């Protein structure tokens, strides 16, 4: 290896290490800050390790019922929403992947067009309102039941992995299209099912916008909306610290609660993420092939 290449490698590795640290440090800091004495964080004494470990923040969070209602709602919306999302997407994608589907291009255009033009916020809101979905669970699920991009990804997966001969053979055996889809295509398509479940589940878990516009009943709020009130609007946090004496102390403890809440909200994703990362990457790549 030439001298130039060795210098290149050293710089490259160094830069990558710095980038990784820049990405990981904020996340790490949240973890240590959530269990450190808020006064020490406030005065800038916590940098690399937690100091004066306290679980007061978490205790207050666990005592607050709103967060847990939000958690429950988010789980419900994510599970039901993802089932609807994946079922509709795979069914549509399979039908569109079949070359013998009459009017395939026209149907594809009907879907693709919505990627580039939409009615916009207000007309969509009016539709949801007219259907009587406001303030119901279904407002969290139906308005984003299918994502066009995911249909394209799944469609190109089917096109590339289900050989035409298989379909021909099944047809000769007298197998119907539905049976073929359920009994042969789906079992062969586990990777794309995993990809779709993950893409949609993360999207559902993380979304707050639909809840913001379609819900105004606190008992239906998903976790993200509760988080917004705590983290950004400082609402709920002040309620959780009412018993604390001085205003300054209240403020510091509500900061502590914020760190804890960030951790609690991210725990489900942080736990599964390392195991499922490869499926996400696979999904991007399947989509990327077709572009």
């Amino acid at each position: 290896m030439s001298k130039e290449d060795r210098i290149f490698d050293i710089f490259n590795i160094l830069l990558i290490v710095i980038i990784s640290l820049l990405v990981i440090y904020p996340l790490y800091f949240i973890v240590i800050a959530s269990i450190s004495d808020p006064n020490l964080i406030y005065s800038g004494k916590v940098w690399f390790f937690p100091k004066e470990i306290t679980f007061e923040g978490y205790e207050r969070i666990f005592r607050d019922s709103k967060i847990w209602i939000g958690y429950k709602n988010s789980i419900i919306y994510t599970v039901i929403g993802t089932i609807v999302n994946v079922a509709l997407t795979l069914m549509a994608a399979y039908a569109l992947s079949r070359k013998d589907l009459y009017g395939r291009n026209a149907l594809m255009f009907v879907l693709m067009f919505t990627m580039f033009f939409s009615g916009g916020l207000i007309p969509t809101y009016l539709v949801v309102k007219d259907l009587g979905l406001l303030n119901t669970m279904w407002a969290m699920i139906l308005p984003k039941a299918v994502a066009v991009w995911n249909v394209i990804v799944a469609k190109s997966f089917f096109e590339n992995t289900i050989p035409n001969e298989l379909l021909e053979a099944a047809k000769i055996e007298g197998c119907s299209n539905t049976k073929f889809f359920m009994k042969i295509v789906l079992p062969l398509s586990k990777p794309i099912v995993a990809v779709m479940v993950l893409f949609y589940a993360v999207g559902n878990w993380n979304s707050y916008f639909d809840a913001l516009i379609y819900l105004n009943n606190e008992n239906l709020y998903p976790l993200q909306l509760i988080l917004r009130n705590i983290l950004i609007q400082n609402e709920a946090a002040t309620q959780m610290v009412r018993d604390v004496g001085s205003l300054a102390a209240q403020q510091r403890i509500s900061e502590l609660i914020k760190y804890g809440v960030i951790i609690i909200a991210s725990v489900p994703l942080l736990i599964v993420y390392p195991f499922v990362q490869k499926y996400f990457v696979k999904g991007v790549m399947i989509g990327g092939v077709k572009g």
Partner: protein
Amino acid sequence: MKAQIDIPGKPARQIYSIKRRKTWSKILVNYELYLLLLPALIYFVVFSYIPMYGVLIAFKDFIATEGILGSPWVGFKHFETFFHSFQFWSLIKNTLGLSTFQLIIGFPLPIMLALMLNQVRSEKYKRFVQTVVYAPHFISIVVLVGMISVFFSDNGLVNNLITIFGGKPISFMAQPEWFQPLYIGSGVWQETGWAAVIYLAALAGVSPELHEAAIMDGANKWQRILHIDIPAIMPTAVILLVLSVGNIMNIGFEKAYLLQTPLNQPTAEIIPTYVYKLGLQQAQYSLATAVGLFNAVINIILLIAVNKFAKKLSGQSLW
């Protein structure tokens, strides 16, 4: 008709369709596929196409009891109101400014990261770095903005760091000039790693023989990146660039809205947040729809123009 379909085996059906050559038979043969497609199609009609029809209220004075059809036509009144409003130019400037800066800064970084990662030879180390840099992508916008607000608060991590180095604390969240850097910086932190995935995939497709031949000719790593790797990811980059330029007015509502404070409005108010406030908080349905439509039309014009331009220049295009 159903009897026709249930005849087992393909030949009978083929003969049938050749004989009649009727559209109907082609559809009926695969009626189950249409049934599979139906739920998604209903979804798109209800939640995408009916709202497109609902855009008509931009040209009407929408009265809820009269419905979309019954409300009186007013032509371009709402568009004129918007064009003449004192916020018009600042909204355009904020929206375009934010997305342009985001594109200029956010677009090249994933390419650079992918090129760098591609040069790492230890697979284990590479995978570890990838796991780290992809992680922020999965954090929700709410949590991201929550992190920004704790890190950049008056006594947050960043200001503590500034004080250590003898600087003066800055009220990041309250100053209009800090809105764009915070928005774009946090976007870079969150998305650069994930956006590199697609380039890494393109780089993985480069034939090793090309590199071997180049090494034989005495090319160093830097030269090989310039002359092999970059040309290899060009097609992907062009398509992604077309998509992002075409979406330049489509900057997300979600993060901007959360990052807004009463004090940073002069730079933080962008068209999507304005539409939300106008429409859903003040119930000015028609005016808000007009503003949204204006935005969508500019977007689609941009997309078509950029796509044409890219097609001419590099032969790459979306359609």
